[in-house]
Every structure is written in structure tokens, then in C-alpha cells.
């Protein structure tokens, strides 16, 4: 199979843009202007600005505008050339040959060559970028550079998802002439980056702001339009909204649901809904059942919990509409793999949940609680109660989960923890009954789905297989999916996987989350991904 990548680069594409003042056209939205400054609020200080050595969302948000990937992804998650002009796929998907763009220079004037790509992968990405290292790193055999404009990736077996893992989020390219021979984690350029991206570094005041200036030599004609982008650190979401309303900032990466409705009514703002975030895309809030615990041995109990969850209520009352009910284990954002018509997928049905609990041997008492009567591995008379571990920031999920399960006689004990302690408790100590995690699927199931289900990922790696689910059939199907190149056939394999998953229910997939970017209506031309301001403009 030979495929030519399109050389078209995404220009400002608004995925779903809804104007607040319907009927009144926003003059700013259709007349791009040159010049001006955009001030964007970011939630945390990134600490450093090299996106190749981390998957931290804070670092990627603050740094991606300064870098490029070989490709970028369209709003439909299709790869189109960025640093690569085009590419050939040979050997049934085991060899990728990229033809690099002519005349690209680093911000310091040095030319960009294939050696930079080889260096970025071999010395940095495959060592320090956890997602790329875990997926591409395991499948890759070698990288070669036949000439300055060509780079070849050879895989041990056909590897279909590769082009989706080459954007600035998954594989930013960094300069060899700056990083060669140094420790990439300690290089001073991490604080004064040199990239190829639409904006170049100007200054970084830790905890306060990062200033970027227009790259006049950017390889896309007419871009960027803005003279300057300022990323201002404002940790509190409520303060971000106030700063936006006061006109101190022009762009928020996200806004709490309750404020969103108010901003929509107030007018003067534009909105961009997206399931893409610098830290990951296509995220599903997922309940994990610890299959090592006796209480979750019986699939009927797991199914009862899943059936007692009213996902729509999570969409309405926790997300305030910024998301939708998950209909399958794989996100609807991965079109070819998403199977939304599986009959085994639990949907809210209180009576069915009660019946399942009765059948599993959890019998209702006079006071409404349930106790065990003949449940395997649990002494009779034990009350039905289990822990629910969660990030402190997900408290609303915990409260609603507890309330919904109390309705069918299940007692839930909430155990909120900070993220790093959570990772330790759940993945290292495995000291939990159930939990909720935002599992980001990424652009391809190989990136963010597989880690949740294959038995090789049970263990101490954070945000891998939390349920400790192990099914040889599922393992071999994931192997098959990885080496299947035809999207239709791959989709069929993923469908089979999901059919098994909704029967086994090691997890329950509650809601797919979205973020809503909000920006001042005097600005426009934004896109959803890392290069959000590449083609943006602001009228002064």
C-alpha cells in the first residue's frame, strides 16, 4: 500500500464554534487583522518549556506554539503534513518515509534537517515522552536519514497508528544543534526554547507569565498574524473567568460549566468546544473496579454498579453539558473504532441494578442497606460497602456516585487524594476498591486505550491497567489490531474487543468530557489543538 500524505496544513479551522449573539454577526470573526497581542490564561506554571521530555499538560500548553511535529492533526484527527511535506508508507505499513519541508529554520537561524528528527526520537522522545516511548518505542526497529530532507522509520511489524502520533503533542521535534551531547532534562534551552513553531520565545517569569513573539520566518505564508502571545498564570478557574470579563485576558482553555452558561448569556465572548487538550484528547471519565477485591469478583455486582449509574446526571450536573454520556469503551472521537451499538453496554436502570444485586447475593435489609448472603469469598452478613478513590478535584463525581449508589442500597466511602498520591495508592500499592480516572484515549486506541486492558500493563506504571484486568483473548486482539493496517479491519478488531469488555466490565465508562475554550469576540481564528493561536488574530 502506498499513501501520499496531503501537504495541506490546517489553517484556522473552528471545530464547533457557537456565537453567543445569534443573528448579529461578529465583525472580528470574519476579518483577520495583522498584529496585536493575545493574552491567554494558563492554570499552572509549567516549570520548564520542553514538550519533548514530558506529557505534562501544563508544559505542553505553554510550549507547543514554539514547536512543530512532523504532522498536525485536523479537527477530524486526520494527519496532514507540518514539518513533513508528504510521506510514503511501504512494506504494508512497516516502513514510513517522510519528505521534509524545504527552507525551514530554527528560531536561531540554523536550518532544520532530518538529523533533528532522528535525534529528537532516538535521544529524547523514546526515552522521556511516556506515551510515545510506550507505544512507538516498543514497535520501532530503526530510524535512518538517507539525506537531509528524508527520514525513514522502520518498524518490526506493520504499525498502523504511527502518523497519528507525530503531532506536536505526541512527538515535538527539538533542535539537535542545541541538545546534542547534553542531558535533555537539564539543558538550559528548556527554559529558553529554540523551536521551529509559529511563535518564538521571548521571556519566562516563573509563576507569572511567558511571552512569545511572532516568528517572522514561519514556513506557512501569512502566519502567524499576532505579534505577541502572552501566557499568564492564573491558577484559580473563577479568577480566570473574572480576568476574562475584565478584559485582562482574551483566551481561556476551559471554563467551569456554571460560569459557561452565564458567559453565554452575557455576550461578548466566543466559544470553541473540543475534546482535545494538550494533555490528551478523547478523555472518558472511567470507573475502575479492582478485580483483585472479593466484592468485585462477581460480574453481576459490577454490572449492578454500572446499571445504577445515571450517566446523564453526570453530564447535566457535574459537567453542565460539557460532555456526553459514554456509549462504548472507546471514545466517539475515534470514529473507526467506536462501537456505540453494543447491546451489552450498561445503561441506567434502577430496578435492573436492584435485581442484579439480589441475584449476586446482596440482600436488602429493613434499613435499606444490603448484606451478603452466600456471596463467594465474603462472610454472610457483611454490609455492601466499598471505597471509591478519586482526585480531590473530582469531588463532584464522588458525591454524585455515592448518592446514586445509595439509591440501590450500596454504601460508598469516598477517598479523595492528590494526583501523585492517587497514582501511588492505585497503581503501586493497589490499595483501593474502586476509583474514577479520566482515561484519555488519544487519537488512536493504540495510544490511550490499550494500556487499560492488556495484562502486560498491570503494575506500577501510573494510569495503566487500574482494574488489573487480564483476558488472553483481549491481549491477542490488541496485538492483532496493532499490526492490522486497513482501518476498516482494525475497526472490526476493536469492535470485538469492546464486545468482550462490555460483558466483562472491568471498568465502567461514564461520560466523555469536553472542554470549552472561551475567548473575547474581538479575537478569532483559533484552532483546537496545541497550535491554538497559529492563525489567530485580535483587533485592538
Amino acid at each position, binding site marked *: 500500500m502506498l499513501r501520499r500524505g496531503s501537504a495541506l496544513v490546517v489553517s484556522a479551522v473552528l471545530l464547533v464554534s457557537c456565537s453567543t449573539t445569534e443573528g448579529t454577526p461578529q465583525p472580528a470573526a470574519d476579518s483577520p487583522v495583522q498584529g496585536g497581542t493575545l493574552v491567554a490564561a494558563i492554570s499552572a506554571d509549567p516549570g520548564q518549556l520542553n514538550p519533548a521530555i514530558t506529557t505534562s499538560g501544563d508544559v505542553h500548553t505553554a510550549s507547543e506554539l514554539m514547536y512543530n511535529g512532523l504532522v498536525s492533526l485536523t479537527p477530524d484527527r486526520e494527519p496532514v503534513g507540518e514539518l513533513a511535506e508528504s510521506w510514503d508508507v511501504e512494506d504494508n505499513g512497516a516502513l514510513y518515509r517522510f519528505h521534509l519541508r524545504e527552507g525551514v529554520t530554527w528560531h536561531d537561524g540554523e536550518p532544520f534537517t532530518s538529523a533533528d528528527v532522528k535525534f529528537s526520537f532516538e535521544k529524547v522522545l523514546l526515552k522521556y515522552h511516556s506515551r510515545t516511548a510506550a507505544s512507538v518505542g516498543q514497535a520501532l526497529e530503526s530510524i535512518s536519514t538517507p539525506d537531509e530532507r528524508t527520514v525513514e522509520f522502520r518498524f518490526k511489524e506493520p504499525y498502523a497508528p504511527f502518523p497519528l502520533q507525530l503531532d506536536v503533542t505526541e512527538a515535538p521535534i527539538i533542535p539537535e544543534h542545541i541538545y546534542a551531547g547534553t542531558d535533555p532534562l537539564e539543558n538550559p534551552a528548556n527554559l529558553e526554547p529554540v523551536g521551529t513553531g509559529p511563535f518564538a520565545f521571548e521571556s519566562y517569569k516563573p509563576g507569572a507569565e511567558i511571552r512569545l513573539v511572532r516568528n517572522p520566518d514561519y514556513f506557512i505564508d501569512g502566519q502567524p498574524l499576532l505579534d505577541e502571545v502572552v501566557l499568564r498564570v492564573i491558577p484559580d*478557574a*473563577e479568577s480566570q473567568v473574572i480576568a476574562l470579563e475584565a478584559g485582562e485576558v482574551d483566551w481561556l482553555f476551559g471554563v*467551569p460549566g*456554571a*460560569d459557561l*452558561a*452565564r458567559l453565554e448569556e452575557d455576550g461578548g465572548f466566543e466559544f470553541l468546544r473540543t475534546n482535545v487538550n494538550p494533555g490528551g484528547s478523547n478523555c472518558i471519565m472511567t470507573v475502575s473496579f479492582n478485580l483483585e477485591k472479593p466484592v468485585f469478583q462477581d460480574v453481576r455486582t459490577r454490572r449492578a454498579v454500572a446499571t445504577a449509574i445515571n450517566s446523564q*446526571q453526570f453530564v*447535566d*450536573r*457535574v459537567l*453542565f453539558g460539557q460532555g456526553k454520556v459514554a456509549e462504548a469503551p472507546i471514545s466517539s472521537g475515534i470514529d473507526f473504532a467506536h462501537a456505540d451499538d453494543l447491546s451489552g453496554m450498561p445503561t441506567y436502570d434502577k430496578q435492573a441494578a436492584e435485581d442484579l444485586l439480589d441475584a449476586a447475593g446482596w440482600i436488602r435489609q429493613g434499613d435499606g442497606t444490603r448484606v451478603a448472603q452466600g456471596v463467594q469469598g465474603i462472610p454472610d452478613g457483611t454490609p455492601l460497602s466499598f471505597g471509591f478513590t478519586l482526585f*480531590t478535584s473530582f*469531588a*463532584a463525581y*464522588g*458525591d*454524585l456516585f*455515592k*448518592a*446514586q449508589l*445509595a*439509591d440501590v442500597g450500596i454504601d460508598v*466511602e*469516598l*477517598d*479523595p487524594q492528590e494526583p501523585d498520591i492517587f497514582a501511588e495508592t492505585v497503581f503501586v500499592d493497589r490499595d483501593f476498591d474502586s476509583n474514577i480516572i479520566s482515561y484519555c484515549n488519544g487519537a488512536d486506541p493504540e495510544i490511550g486505550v490499550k494500556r487499560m486492558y492488556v495484562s502486560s500493563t498491570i503494575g506500577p506504571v501510573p494510569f495503566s491497567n487500574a482494574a488489573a484486568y487480564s483476558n488472553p483473548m483481549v491481549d491477542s486482539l490488541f496485538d492483532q489490531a496493532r499490526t492490522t493496517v486497513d482501518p476498516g479491519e482494525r475497526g472490526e478488531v476493536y469492535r470485538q474487543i469492546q464486545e468482550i469488555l462490555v460483558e466483562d466490565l472491568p471498568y465502567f465508562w461514564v461520560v466523555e468530557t469536553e472542554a470549552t475554550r472561551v475567548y473575547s469576540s474581538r479575537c478569532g481564528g483559533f484552532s483546537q489543538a496545541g497550535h491554538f493561536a497559529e492563525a489567530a488574530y485580535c483587533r485592538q
Partner: protein
Amino acid sequence: MSFSPDASLKPSEPAVATPGQQIMRRLTRPAGVIGATLTLALICVGLLAPFLAPTDPRAIDGPSLSPPTASHPMGTDALGRDVLSGVIYGARTSLITVSGVGLLVFLIGITVGIVSGYRGGWLDDVLMRGTEALQVLPRFFLALVVVAYFGPGTDRLVIVLGLTSWPLLARVVRSQTLSLRRRDFIEAARTQGASGYRIVVHELWPNLLPTVFTLMGLLTAQVLLIEASLGFLGLSDPDAVSLGYLASEGQRFLRVAWWLAAFPGLAILVAVLGLNLLADSAGDATLRA
């Protein structure tokens, strides 16, 4: 504030009321009445929470973010839970914490203070050095550390606050005891052959009562604020409803749903105000009678 037991302690003269009577007299003045009423209300609401609350405070009971209505007098939160029920159960959690801490403080503070002041000598030195060591510990941060280390929970909060809040009480009780033990009526009791126990319980204790009462009121008000602050920082027991936690949840919706932060905040204010007024009027009793 300074304590001048001399003025209040003339138990032999019938014209002057006993310390207990002085407290009662003070409590019938406006500030005292308000303080006593508010505190009594807090205790009643806490004790009778299951009967007073319209619903389970965790149940999804109404629409999301409904303003105060007849069916939800304090409105509902984002998840549709009744705020009034939350406030009532939050008061219960506060009451449990405050009573637990109060009991520990009372027992330890009084014992250490009286033993130290009445016995004196090396025992006094040992106890007072220990008290000083505890007194310099920042209580709020100690509570934070305990919650961070052992996870949030009302039981450990009561223990850590109870074990660290008594030094002030112990020191004041000790100084009172030191000055009282040389007074004529104590000496008189001693020469009549009264046992140490009898002197402490029948002669010393009634005269310590106003001071203890005042300090306990102030201390419990502080504890209530610490409990609320921890809740506000999201460090309260996640399975119990806390006024501070409710207020912090409300803060996220401050501009769309004022009732979420206002009512729990008001409840904290009322409870702390009640305890302070009560303590204050009892303090007046010791100062002016």
C-alpha cells in the same frame, strides 16, 4: 484579658453570689441571652439533625442549582442536593468535633492545671515545660499534617485538636490555683483537716468555674473555625457533611448561586458568634462581679 479572682472570691460573705450564680446572672443580659440562645440552637440542631433535616443531605433531591423555594428553603446545589439538610448535618458534624475536642481539652487542661498549681514542685516544672512545648505548636498546620498523612476523618481531627488545644486552659487554671491555694478559705479548710480531694472539689473548683467556662467557650469557637477551615480546604471527612466544605463548594458557584456559600457561611458565623458571646459574658462575670 486579665483575671482578678480577688474581686470575685468571697464565698464566706453571703451578700455576694457564688461564681455559678454570677454566671447565670450575666447570661440573662442581652449579649449573654443571645450567646446562650445561639449555642443552644447549635446543640439542638446538631442533636436533632435526623429529625430536622428534610432529606438525606447527600440525596439527589431536586433540580440542579435551584434558588431558595418552599420545598428547598435554602436552595439546592449543583448536584441537586438540599442545602438546608446539608447545613443541618454540617452543624451536627461541627457539634461532634467541638464536643469531642472540648471534652479532651476540659479533662486534660483542668487536670494538668490543678495538679500543677496545687501540688507545685518538680511536678509543676515537668507539666509546665510540657505545656509550653505544646503551646508553640501551630495547631492548624498540625491538623493539616495529620490529615495529609492519615487522610481526612472526624476522629483524628478530634484527637489532634483535643491533644493540642489544652495548654492555654491548663496555664490559666494553674495560675488561678496558685493564687487561690494561699487564700484564707483554703487555708481554713486545710487546717480543719480537709483532704486534698475535698479542697479541690469543694473549695477550689467553684472558684475556677467562671474562668474555665470562658476559656472553654473561646477554645471551642476556635475549634469550630479550624474545623470549618479544614472543610473549606477540602480536608474534612469526605463521607461527612461539613459547613466549611459546603461553603467552599459554594464558592465555585458564587456568581450564579449565592445561596450555596451564603447559608453555610451564615451557619458558621452564627455558631462562632454564639460561642464567643457566651464566653464573653461569662468572662464579664469573673471580671466585674
